[in-house]
């Protein structure tokens, strides 16, 4: 199976080039037979890359350490679970994994459009196969072939990095890769639209949905990454402004911008060049994210070892994509002119535009902070470091502006809003926001940014709730429905809009959670069995933890030491909490597994920072059982995960296919009623 996989990877090379050529040639000369062959080649490449991926997994499962990749990322005792995840644990496998997901999405796009959007498809296939060909070339010729052999067979592998041996590791990277790769489809349609010159709403309609798919996975991927960092890396935080984290944030920011500005194009026929540029930019940023991770140019906790071949080949690819896209846009400039102009600063489109500018501003700040050390060293020769203080300082104010716009956008009217209209809609939310700030001030919170976040969050949530309430009430009155049915129908009829509001609510929850970190408490203490440590929560109560004792055990892949602490909150027992350290024998590495007691209000986060005597503690000598713990109280962290769930629900509502275009009742056939089911959605 593994040899067949290697063969399939090589075979994918000519097939993807075949598909790229046939797509472009067939499209250019109107040859349907060539186009059909190109479309079939997409399925073939997917099949081949799938065989290759299964080959890698098979090599992991069969402990075939003669392969460099397996030898470096696995060992005999590794859980089967993690052996399968080995496919994306390291650079080589993850590139293959990336390619196979891209081929999977490409196949779906081709299948979906067998009878639709036919003018675009030859070029869409051509572009997608071009991207696939690029990744296959990288895999085969940039010293990252996952099937490379060592020339000898070690008795056992080096093992998987213990920090990757975590449940979230099996979920976080694939989700992120799904998000990155799915954006290739909008890019392919954008290029096809530019090539064919069909620049009306058609490509936007197809692209919008795929962008939402990509955005959905990206968002979840980033949140899963935070979860992993929080549980596994044991520093009590979830975001470190690490270059690779930043790299995943960049396409998120630009695709968020696109999701908003695309609405302006749909409704007002404006911003065509802008939207086209955002698609190209987002695609480039997804490739840039891979580049940053794979090239090892910038130091990061995530980066794989430095590899100059990869850096060069990625730079060349990004450069040619950028150059080609810019030329195409310039060539089609006349067809991309706006049909309308912005009428007033007090309008929804102006708010969306501002949101776009601010999102791109954030992206620019993050990008610049990430590459600044490289730039500075190249120019002045002096190495410098740009860290979290920079990113927090720049991005917190930007984030607050975005948060405010989240509340303003939905209420302000398209085209031109009057001052009276604004007053009418904003009075209540503003009062609620101000009220929340006053309450928190009264409770003793003094952090300006946190107060602003809480106030704005309350403002936005009020706006959203009022929207839902007014909409439901209007519908209940008009249709004579009960409140619940009215709400369901309201959301069902314009899924994108109401789903979007739900996503906003999730984003607000996450912002609130971020602000909570301003009130983190922590304490470090040396403990002997029976001794206790107390930590005050910012919510006013006090936790006290009594160290009961420590035990050790030997697991297949590691030794573990588990400290048991009993928790009391204001004197009331809350049960026990364990926190542990593990020694992975094959990797010869010690890692901590933090103990977390999560409540909606706050997390109690306990790190076993040190064990006095790893060998001696089994001898039951009380002195040898001395440990060092770091106890943290992290307020509101759980709201990030809740917010993620809400975002998932909202995105799924927005993504859910509209009802079938066929009318269900006689009256619905009368035209106007049809507008209520989004035709755009049904046809996309």
């Amino acid at each position: 199976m593994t040899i067949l996989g290697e063969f399939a990877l090589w075979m994918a090379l000519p097939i993807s080039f075949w598909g790229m050529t046939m797509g472009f040639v067939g499209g250019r000369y109107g040859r349907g037979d060539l186009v059909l062959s190109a479309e079939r080649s997409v399925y073939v490449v997917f099949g081949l890359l799938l065989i290759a991926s299964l080959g890698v997994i098979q090599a992991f499962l069969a402990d075939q350490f003669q392969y460099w990749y397996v030898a470096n990322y696995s060992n005999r005792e590794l859980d089967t679970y993690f052996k399968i995840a080995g496919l994306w644990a390291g650079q080589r496998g993850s590139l293959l994994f990336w390619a196979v997901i891209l081929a999977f999405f490409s196949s779906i796009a081709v299948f979906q459009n067998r009878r639709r959007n036919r003018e675009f498809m030859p070029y869409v296939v051509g572009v997608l196969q071009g991207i696939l060909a690029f990744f296959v070339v990288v895999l085969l010729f940039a010293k990252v072939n996952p099937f490379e052999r060592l020339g000898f067979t070690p008795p056992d592998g080096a093992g998987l990095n213990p920090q990757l041996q975590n449940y979230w590791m099996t979920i976080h990277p694939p989700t992120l890769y799904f998000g990155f790769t799915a954006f290739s489809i909008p890019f392919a349609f954008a290029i096809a639209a530019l090539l064919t010159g069909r620049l009306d709403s058609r490509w936007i309609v197809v692209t919008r949905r795929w962008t939402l798919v990509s955005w959905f996975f990206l968002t979840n991927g980033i949140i899963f990454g935070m979860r992993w960092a929080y549980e596994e890396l044991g520093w009590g935080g979830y975001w470190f402004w690490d270059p690779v984290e930043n790299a995943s944030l960049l396409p998120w920011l630009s695709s968020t911008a696109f999701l908003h500005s695309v609405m302006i194009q749909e409704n007002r026929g404006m911003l065509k060049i802008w939207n086209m540029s955002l698609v190209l930019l987002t695609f480039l940023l997804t490739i840039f994210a891979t580049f940053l991770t794979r090239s090892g140019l910038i130091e990061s906790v995530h980066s794989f070892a430095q590899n100059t071949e990869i850096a060069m080949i990625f730079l060349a690819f990004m450069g040619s994509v950028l150059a080609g896209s810019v030329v195409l846009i310039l060539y089609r400039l006349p067809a991309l002119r706006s049909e309308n102009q912005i009428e007033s600063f007090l309008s929804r489109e102006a708010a969306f535009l501002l949101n776009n500018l601010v999102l791109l501003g954030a992206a620019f700040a993050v990008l610049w902070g990430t590459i600044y050390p490289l730039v500075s060293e190249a120019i002045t020769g002096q190495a410098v470091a740009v860290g979290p203080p920079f990113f927090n300082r720049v991005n917190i104010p930007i984030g607050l502006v975005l948060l405010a716009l989240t509340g303003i956008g939905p209420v302000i009217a398209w085209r031109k809003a009057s001052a009276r209209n604004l007053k009418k809609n904003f009075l209540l939310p503003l009062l609620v926001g101000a009220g929340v700030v006053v309450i928190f001030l009264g409770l003793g919170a003094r952090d300006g940014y946190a107060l602003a976040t809480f106030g704005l969050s309350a403002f936005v949530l009020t706006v959203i709730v009022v929207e839902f309430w007014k909409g439901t009430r209007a519908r209940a009155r008009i249709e004579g429905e009960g409140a619940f049915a009215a709400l369901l129908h309201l959301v069902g009829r314009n899924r994108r809009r109401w789903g979007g509001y739900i996503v906003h609510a999730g984003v607000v929850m996450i912002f609130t959670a971020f602000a909570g970190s301003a009130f983190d408490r922590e304490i470090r203490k040396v403990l002997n069995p029976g001794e206790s440590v107390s930590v005050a929560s910012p919510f006013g109560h006090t936790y006290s933890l009594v160290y009961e004792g420590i035990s050790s055990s030997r697991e297949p892949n590691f030794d573990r030491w588990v400290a048991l602490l009993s928790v009391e909150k204001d004197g009331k027992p809350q049960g026990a909490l364990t926190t542990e350290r593990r020694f992975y024998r094959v990797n010869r590495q010690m890692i901590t597994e933090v103990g977390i007691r999560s409540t909606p209000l706050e997390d109690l986060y306990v790190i076993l920072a040190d064990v006095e005597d790893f060998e001696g503690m089994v001898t039951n000598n009380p002195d040898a059982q001395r440990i060092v713990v770091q106890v943290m109280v992290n307020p509101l962290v759980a709201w990030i995960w809740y917010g993620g769930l809400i975002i998932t629900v909202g995105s799924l509502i927005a993504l859910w296919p509209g009802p079938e275009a066929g009318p269900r009742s006689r009256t619905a056939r009368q035209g106007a009623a049809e507008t209520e089911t989004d035709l755009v959605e049904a046809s996309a």
Partner: protein
Amino acid sequence: MELIAAVLLVIVTAVFLLQPILAGKAAPLVSPQAEPTEAQFRKRVALQQLRDVEYEYAMGKLGDADYRSLKSRLSAEALAAIRAEKEEEGGIHGDAAAVAEASEAELEREIALLRARISGGPFCSDCGRPNPAGARFCAHCGASLGAPAVSDSSE
């Protein structure tokens, strides 16, 4: 064993990819299904916006002045889109005045329908047209409307 699989893989792939060219089997280059044209798309968007405006007015989000100005501009846009659609369809030939008249008639129908839906008037079970709230007989064909306020749950 794996050698046989590899050979099979190559053969199957070659047949699959070359068959369209050798047997002259072609993928369609234009969509066989009717796709909404640009004019239809614009019409949908304009009507959807009109509906949103009506709704927001009913929700109390829009003041009277805003409502009227938005409404007149959106109507103009919808009218332009409907006219473009009619010209595209070529249903009415030549006479520009006839096209304009037919478009206006259609827009009026659409708006009447929208408004009827918002105001909760019943739909005629015979001709399917909307009627003012509380009507007992259809204003268009005279059929009895039966129980008032028939709501359409498919919306």
